[in-house]
């Protein structure tokens, strides 16, 4: 059955995968980063098609708005003539291809063997507040409180680590 959302999904999927391919094959690093933006935006649209508006927006805020900006920032601070040298492939490309194919096959197998795979998704009730549900699940003791707290502690540790590394010590303290 072909519906509008299926057509949109197919177009977005092709664009996402195509730009993901361009990320690894583009010769210019800034162009590669921009293709990465397109790919991540495609993922955000996929979240939106699944009525996961919160995840779609967070995908844009964090990946496009923060991470790729930092990547571009780092590229801009490097030498311009270091951008376009050499082939995109080295002698290990066969190994990389094999391992990626293996991981992809494992993921497909895992998803297909999941019992919910063949269930037709039902549209959400208009009054269903997915943001509130997500927020409650993150802090409920029978929900995801432990992973949430662990991730918070990990991020805090990374933050402190970054500050310690970047700390400018005065000469007499050395």
């Amino acid at each position, binding site marked *: 059955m072909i519906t509008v959302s299926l057509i949109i999904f197919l177009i977005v999927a092709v664009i996402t995968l195509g730009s993901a391919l361009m990320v690894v094959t583009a010769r210019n690093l800034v162009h590669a980063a921009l293709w990465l933006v397109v790919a991540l935006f495609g993922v955000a649209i996929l979240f939106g098609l699944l009525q996961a*508006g919160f995840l779609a927006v967070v995908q844009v805020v964090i990946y496009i*708005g923060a991470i790729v*900006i930092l990547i571009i*920032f780092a590229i801009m*601070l490097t030498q311009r003539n270091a951008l376009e040298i050499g082939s995109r492939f080295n002698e290990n490309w066969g190994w990389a291809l094999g391992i990626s194919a293996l991981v992809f096959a494992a993921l497909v197998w895992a998803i297909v063997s999941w019992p919910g795979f063949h269930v037709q998704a039902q549209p959400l009730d208009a009054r269903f507040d997915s943001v509130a549900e997500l927020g409650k699940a993150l802090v409920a003791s029978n929900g995801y409180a432990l992973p949430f707290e662990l991730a918070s502690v990990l991020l805090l540790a990374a933050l402190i680590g970054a500050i310690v590394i970047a700390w400018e010590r005065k000469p007499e303290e050395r």
Partner: protein
Amino acid sequence: MDLGLWIEWIVKAIILIVVLLIGFMYLTYMERKFLARFQNRYGPNRAGPVGLLQPMADGIKLIFKEEVIPKQADKLIFILAPVITVIPAWVILAVIPLGSIQLFGRTIDFSLAGDLNVGILYIMAVTSISVYGIVLAGWSSNNKYALLGGIRSSAQMISYELALGLAFVGPAMMASSLSLARIVEAQSKTVWFAVLQPIGFVVFLVAALAEINRSPFDMPEAEQELTAGYHVEYSGMKFAMFMLTEYTKMIVVSVIAATLFLGGYHFPFLTDRWPWLGPLVLFAKVIILLFGIIWVRATLPRVRYDQLMALGWKVMLPAALLNVFITAGVMYVLGMIA
């Protein structure tokens, strides 16, 4: 999807863009006129009555200018950058609630995208991608000054985005929703959040000024140090598009500030009685905020780059965090009492 809905969306989108374009044109006029009065001058007064046709004259002049593309520039990105800059400034207003009226037996919601349940986050997302245009313009020009301007502005915008995002948290907590319509409703039931959230309001205003690169934070465009910053190589209409974005963003942040902290389209007694006044009330609030932005530009000198970063990370971020903690604490205590 029915055809009526499509027509409604298209008409609303065209109205929004036309309003923003005319707003841009006359905001430049308003700024020049007010700056002139602040500095005891007359300002534009030759084209048309009291200079009212000046924006038209400027536009026509820019259209007929030669467009120069530097030989060493990355051509595709150089041409795309102004476009990438303009789009976020235009799409961000889609979620702003403007009230609704009953007309022809159906409820007409003035806002473009209706009530998005993650409205505030949508604004955050669009703000966070508005950095791209400036960074790419600076990089693709292949010019040291443009690149420095681009790097400066991206560092500045990333730094102030944190404070801006945390300033959004206050109203969201008070209204216990991320939807902008709920936030305006909550303010119509109590008082404006600017009263309940004074720290959040001030942090928002300062961070917004930095986010749109306005004076006193117009660091990326510091003429003395960077000739003109990221758009130094741009000419003609491409340059006009950067200017368009800058002024459109002024309007946009004023609309967001009015919606989050000044009651949005709602004004006590007035819009309860006549709901169609909603957009006009918001317009009046936006004009006042825009006057404030111009006033700041006429008053304050540009801050130094290191002062800007220190302010962002050592003052704004802790203040915004403190505001979130205080809001949470007060709401918890009030919840305990009630």
